[in-house]
């Protein structure tokens, strides 16, 4: 159907492999998410703690710079697991803000305009659709979590005298694993709640609420029943404990929960999110009766 002739012609060219279709969804998802100025602003904001940490590492490893800044003590602070734990925490909570803005943009437009019947009538499965959206969100969150954290680690390894990096490889592993666990949870939670709520602004609020409201409830449960298990509803506490253990950093949280219980709770949350997505991402709703 050439433009000038206005006739229909069938397509006989090559086709892309089936596995690459989820990347099409990822590409269009990223384009949609990053077309917003608020996304750009949030993304920029996410790098402020990284810049501060970068300056800190530079300062610690550069005595001349310390003297020029008028520092009295030879060492302002040390670059250790605790330093990177604070970095990871800062990046992770900023990632929550970014996820709560980006996730609804990936899903709600499709749901609000009822695009799923058309999207899923193409040779893609529901799994491919979700994988594409998940990858878009996961990639966006990776850029503000484990990637800058590992770059800081690499910079510290490069700047410090001796074999600092090889002696502290556990920190790098902990940063990567801790961040990946968190952004996987955030991605699934963000997509599930966005598919459930449909309205973009409300979905953003609901994602925040899903993290902080159970935390409040958990704190009340722990205080009233005098039990530590209430913290299993408290995602910030659970993640902080998990990150501490992964980085082998000194405890900064008063709570104590077994690692197995934390992982099991996170797994349960992920399963519930997948259940919601399975129920909501359908070309057609089945009316039982």
């Amino acid at each position, binding site marked *: 159907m050439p433009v000038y002739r206005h006739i*229909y012609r069938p397509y006989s060219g090559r*086709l892309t492999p*089936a596995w690459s279709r989820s990347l099409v969804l990822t590409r269009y998802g990223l384009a949609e998410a990053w077309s917003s100025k608020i996304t750009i602003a949030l993304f920029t904001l996410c790098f402020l703690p990284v810049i501060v940490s970068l300056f800190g590492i530079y300062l610690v490893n550069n005595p001349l710079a310390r003297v020029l800044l008028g520092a009295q003590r030879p060492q302002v602070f040390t670059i250790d697991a605790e330093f990177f734990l604070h970095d990871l925490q800062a990046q992770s909570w900023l990632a929550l803000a970014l996820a709560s803005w980006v996730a609804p943009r990936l899903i709600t*437009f499709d749901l609000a*305009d009822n*695009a799923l019947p058309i999207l899923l009538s*193409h*040779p893609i499965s529901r799994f491919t659709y979700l994988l594409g959206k998940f990858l878009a969100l996961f990639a966006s969150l990776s850029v503000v979590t484990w990637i800058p954290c590992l770059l800081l680690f690499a910079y510290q390894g490069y700047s410090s005298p001796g074999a600092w990096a090889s002696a502290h490889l556990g920190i790098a592993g902990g940063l990567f694993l801790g961040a990946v666990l968190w952004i996987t949870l955030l991605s699934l939670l963000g997509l599930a709640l966005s598919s459930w709520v449909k309205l973009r602004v409300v979905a953003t609020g609901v994602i925040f609420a899903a993290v902080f409201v159970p935390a409040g409830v958990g704190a009340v449960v722990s205080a009233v029943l005098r039990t530590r298990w209430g913290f299993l509803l408290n995602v910030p506490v659970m993640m902080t404990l998990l990150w501490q253990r992964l980085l082998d950093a000194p405890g900064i949280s008063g709570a104590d929960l077994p690692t197995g219980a934390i992982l099991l709770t996170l797994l349960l949350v992920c399963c519930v999110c997948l259940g919601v997505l399975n129920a909501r991402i359908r070309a*057609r709703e089945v*009316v039982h009766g």
Partner: protein
Amino acid sequence: MAVIDLEGLEVRLGNRVVLDALTGALEGRAIGLLGPNGAGKSTLINTLLGFYPPTRGTARVFGLDAYRDRAQIRGKIGYMPENDSFIGNMSGVAFVRYMAELAGLPRREALERAHEALFYVGLGEVRYRVVNSYSLGMKQLIKLAQALAHGPRLLILDEPTNGLDPVARQRMIQLIGEIGRQGDVRILISSHLLRDIDEICDEVLILKAGRIVALSNIERERRSNRSFVELETMELLPHSTDRFAAAARARGCECACFPAGRIKLVLPDNTESRDLYRLASEHGLEIRRLHQRRDSLEDIFLRAMDGGSAIVGAPEAAATEDARRPTHAGL
């Protein structure tokens, strides 16, 4: 090979049987899917797209199992849903390109085909506007454009003229007819508007309460040029219509009775109009008007709705197919 082949297809949604033992082979270039609301037209389309698994039997599209081989089938299909279905904040060309890429076209080809498809359906001038700003008619056309962009072998159109004004409807019908005639595309069109189906299709499948009540090759019906007689009658004696119909059938006529004394008959070679007057007189029926006309889709539809059981017919198909299988309509 039949475009669509149904064998005892049953689909349940919850506890409800929505499609019940559908059997038939659809071979036409443009197939019409007719039926009242709730007959199962959209469920059949969704089953062919692999959205609903059959609870019993099979549905095949181009010989492929509609559920098991759904990914392959979807690559060959262009689907235009009944309701609004698009991504409103995208421009027309971006949306159609996106859909073409999902169908497997490389980026460059997808963009090229998106432009072509939009010009083809008449949206060339507005292709950079966001879809949300389109009128209802334009939204229908962009759904058609995205269904065409990847060059499908089968175009499934669910109520394509829904909500269109007469001019836009005519344009849409013209376009669909043109696609059917020009390319290698087969068309399955679902509509409750008989006129749409009559203008485009050469085969029609009529559903009622989840069952096939007629599967008719309209083109063959038209070609057969059979002589139909339509009577308007008044009963002089109780049940005289039934007795008249029975006597007519005994003489080899095909006969269907409708409310308000309307009777339609196909006369065999040895029967003439005056024989009908004689039969009517013998059975206490007064013929008030008689006119001879050709069968129309409306007749097939009304009869199917009135009867409820499958209307079967074409001799060559009936001879080869299973007796259970409805083929092409008679009467």
